[in-house]
């Protein structure tokens, strides 16, 4: 199958300099001659929010792992802030579907864990003031000495946001961060995420399989199809910020959703 060839590339974040630059990123597995990713191009500018949407197994998690330096690509190049990504880096913050807070640590000890790992206990202690400010930012003030067992799913993800931000990363990689939450909390947390990203002018990259979530959060949505994983459509979302949940009933929002769904159907379920 020679799928859609060259799509005019859109870039997320209109003004800033490029933070992430991916050119022809390919990942194939020798076993089974499987091509997980095929020539993926992507540019993410400073302050931009981009999403990749696609069905399960389309290679979006592989793409994120390559961007994070967790697995090597078999072709193409990945540059972050002008330097090649050849392993995990300090300037990347990551968040997963599960908060993965450690129950023997208090909330604040969980948040400063990345600092403790990199620079030791003393440095982590010195970051407690920053951690408290972040807890305030995500609305968890007063929970610093509670253990994760006392936190709800949404609160745990808020703490995970703090842990991701404590190292002041240049980019946030978000791997379906709220998909384990119920739908009401999820919508709410997405709005919180937007607020936090806007306040800190963060550059973020989200992978998701929810079309409305991708549209409401992003400047650009990349639609990915599987076998081999490749971008079949790039949709620039031209909705004013800050976005609100009410916008989800807008005609324009509905058109974006419909447009993405059409391309998803074409690409994914052939």
């Amino acid at each position, binding site marked *: 199958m020679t799928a859609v060839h060259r799509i005019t590339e859109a870039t997320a974040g209109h003004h800033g300099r490029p933070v992430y630059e991916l050119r022809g990123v390919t990942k194939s597995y020798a076993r089974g001659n499987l091509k997980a990713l095929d020539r993926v191009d992507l540019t993410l500018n400073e302050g931009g929010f981009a999403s990749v949407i696609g069905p399960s197994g389309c290679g979006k998690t592989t793409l994120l792992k390559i961007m*994070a330096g967790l697995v090597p690509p078999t072709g193409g190049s990945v540059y972050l802030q002008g330097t090649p990504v050849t392993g995990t880096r300090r300037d*990347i913050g*990551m968040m*997963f*579907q599960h908060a*993965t807070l*450690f129950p*023997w640590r208090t909330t604040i000890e969980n948040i400063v864990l990345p600092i403790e*790992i*990199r620079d030791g206990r003393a440095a982590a202690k010195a970051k407690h003031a920053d951690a408290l400010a972040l807890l305030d930012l995500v609305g968890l003030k007063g929970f610093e000495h509670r253990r994760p067992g006392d936190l709800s799913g949404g609160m745990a993800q808020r703490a995970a946001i703090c842990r991701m931000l404590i190292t002041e990363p240049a980019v946030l990689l978000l791997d379906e961060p709220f998909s384990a939450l119920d739908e009401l909390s999820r919508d709410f947390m997405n709005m919180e995420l937007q607020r936090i990203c806007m306040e800190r002018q963060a550059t973020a990259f989200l992978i998701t399989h929810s079309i409305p979530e991708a549209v409401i959060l992003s400047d650009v949505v990349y639609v990915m199809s599987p076998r081999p994983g490749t971008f079949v459509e790039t949709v620039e979302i031209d909705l004013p910020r800050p976005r609100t949940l009410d916008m989800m009933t807008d005609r324009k929002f509905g058109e974006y959703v419909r447009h993405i769904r059409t391309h998803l159907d074409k690409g994914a379920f052939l």
Partner: protein
Amino acid sequence: MTAVDNSQGARPDTVWSEPVTFMDRLPRWIGMTGLMVAFLLTWQVIHLSGLVSPIILPGPWETAQDIAFVGQNLLTGGYMLTAFWITFKEVIFGYAIALTIGFSLGIIVGEFAFGERAVLPYLVAIDTMPKVAFAPIFLAWLGFGISSKVALAAFIATFPIVVGTAAGLHASDEHARALFKTMGATRLQTLIKMKLPLALPQMFTGLKIAAVGVMAGAITGEFLGGGKGFGELIRVAASQLNTPRVFSLIIYLSLLGLALFWTVVWVERRLVFWQKSSAGGGMAQ
């Protein structure tokens, strides 16, 4: 939208209660005491009926008297206390050795590819053998003193600790590993700050099984290799057909086993404070 009108035709509340069984309402200690009384009564009836010779099955009262006698001997520092002390040392040394070797092997098997691929198959092979059968070898190597019993006790108790530690180290999920990788953690940091704490619950399951096994090992060693411990007292009492004595010695021996088991549970509750002790908790109240 209109509010639902509740005023019209007020109906009675439909309050009803779920059926509660008699056992649900009964306090636990009553059930336990009742069962014990029934057991003692049955025992007494069988004893009085003369169906079983009193040499084979002494009555509950005789046994109770003997328990009191042995207890007095132990408390006044008699010869039984000396024997108890020997068995106590065998159990404690055996457990300490099993803990050291078991934990180390568990780390090797659970953390290193070499351990999992090369060491584990041999451990599984040895674990499937009836370990008590090794007793004559330990006696031949280490003699009839305390060390051969310590060796057998440690040998039996090591394997559950290895399995618990290794399985626990594999318990860390993919997300936690990916998280530590993105934070740039070294292998040692990942082990100490993430894998070992996450392994603790399964490690303690192994430690509890080992606490039971170490007792069996020490007593089996004494049965087969003589010596001066509690197992030897049991063997002598049995050979003299002093059945009440055998029963009471077993009771005091099981107190040692319980003390060890509960020490492990106590440490677990301190160390794994974020989780309720599984096996111990279930057996607890």
